């Protein structure tokens, strides 16, 4: 769903995996700052959307460059996230200036509004969630999440491993798909939960629901349905390779590795070779 200019002006909120971000239109001089805080009181992050270029960025230091679609900079005490690589010839059209505690920020937007569910748009929305999750909250995975009548199956895979095919198979059997490409994992009440996101993927019928994870699968196409148990450092390494970690942040990276280890220690993990037909569903349920 794309935001209209009117919706962007009005403000709104987006909540994924229990993290809520609110955005507000640019304050006019007569606006009361108290109203702003009242409307944003329940949010983890409050952003002010400004429809003009950002002020000059001073004393920048590169934190991370994706090489393609985004870069993260440190400018004095603020983090600055922009929607192009530092090496790109295309100028950035969105800049997010974040306060050191990541609880507030200013989003500067130039050009066309992003075709996404929030004014941040891809990839700034996902990078912001990665930043927030890495503060001890959770991890974003390259995965398809399935809610099989309360049993949570997490299918992890890189592009081409069969996540969207898996989502379609289960959906056609009346099962809820949280997302076919991006799933957030958190810990809640001593259990590991997975949560749907509205991001990426070919499959549109995603859900914002969350539920505890029962089984975890590293997907790959095969000539027959077959599962092999994975454990220890090998499984943790496979999880990391299918995660979106904060590579630039030692503490956040340490938390990500710890979270992956917790998953491997608490959830049954399998490498799953599968044939894309309905037999896969019974096979997974039988494990």
């Amino acid at each position, binding site marked *: 769903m794309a935001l209209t200019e009117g919706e962007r002006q009005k403000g709104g909120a987006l909540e994924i995996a229990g993290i809520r971000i609110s955005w507000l239109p640019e304050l006019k001089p007569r606006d009361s700052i108290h109203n702003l805080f009242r409307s944003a009181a329940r949010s983890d992050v409050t952003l002010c959307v400004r429809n003009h270029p950002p002020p000059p960025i001073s004393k920048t230091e*590169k*934190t*991370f*460059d*994706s*090489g*393609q679609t985004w870069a993260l900079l440190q400018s004095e005490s603020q983090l600055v996230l922009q929607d192009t690589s530092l090496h790109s010839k295309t100028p950035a059209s969105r800049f997010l200036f974040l306060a050191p505690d990541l609880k507030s920020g200013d989003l500067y937007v130039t050009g066309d509004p992003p075709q996404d569910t929030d004014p941040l748009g891809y990839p700034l929305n996902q990078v912001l969630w990665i930043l927030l999750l890495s503060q001890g909250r959770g991890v974003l995975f390259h995965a398809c999440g399935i809610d099989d009548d309360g049993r949570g199956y997490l299918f992890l895979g890189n592009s081409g491993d069969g996540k969207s095919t898996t989502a379609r198979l289960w959906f056609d059997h009346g099962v809820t798909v949280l997302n076919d490409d991006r799933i957030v994992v958190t810990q809640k009440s001593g259990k590991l939960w997975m949560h749907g996101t509205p991001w990426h993927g070919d499959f549109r019928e995603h859900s914002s629901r969350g539920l505890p994870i029962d089984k975890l699968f590293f997907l790959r196409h095969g000539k027959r349905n077959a599962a092999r148990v994975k454990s*220890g*450092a*090998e499984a*943790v*390494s496979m999880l*990391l*390779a299918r995660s979106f*970690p904060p*590579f*630039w*942040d*030692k503490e956040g*990276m*340490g938390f990500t*590795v*710890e979270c992956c*280890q917790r998953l*491997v220690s608490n959830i049954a993990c399998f490498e799953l070779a599968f044939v894309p037909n309905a037999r896969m569903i019974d096979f997974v349920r039988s494990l």
Partner: protein
Amino acid sequence: MDFLGRVFKKSDTMVFRKIGAEYILVPVRQGVGDLESIYTLNETAARIWELLDGTAKGAEIRDKMSQEFDVTPEEAEKDLVHHLKELASIQAIVEE
């Protein structure tokens, strides 16, 4: 390089975690990461990693490895040099 007479320590830019008898190493980086940037140390390499405390010379680590794994000093030295070279090549260790 003379690995036995030198002192090495773990790089500050490496995140590591013990999982069973092994270690997972992930470098903190400023550019895009990929699968090759996740390393797993086997039991022998993991013990060497633990002994790299920034004070012990390579020769001292060799002697400990020889005792703990019940192998000759020559065998321990061969393993040690091999693993130190590997760790240095991925910038997981720095000379003190």
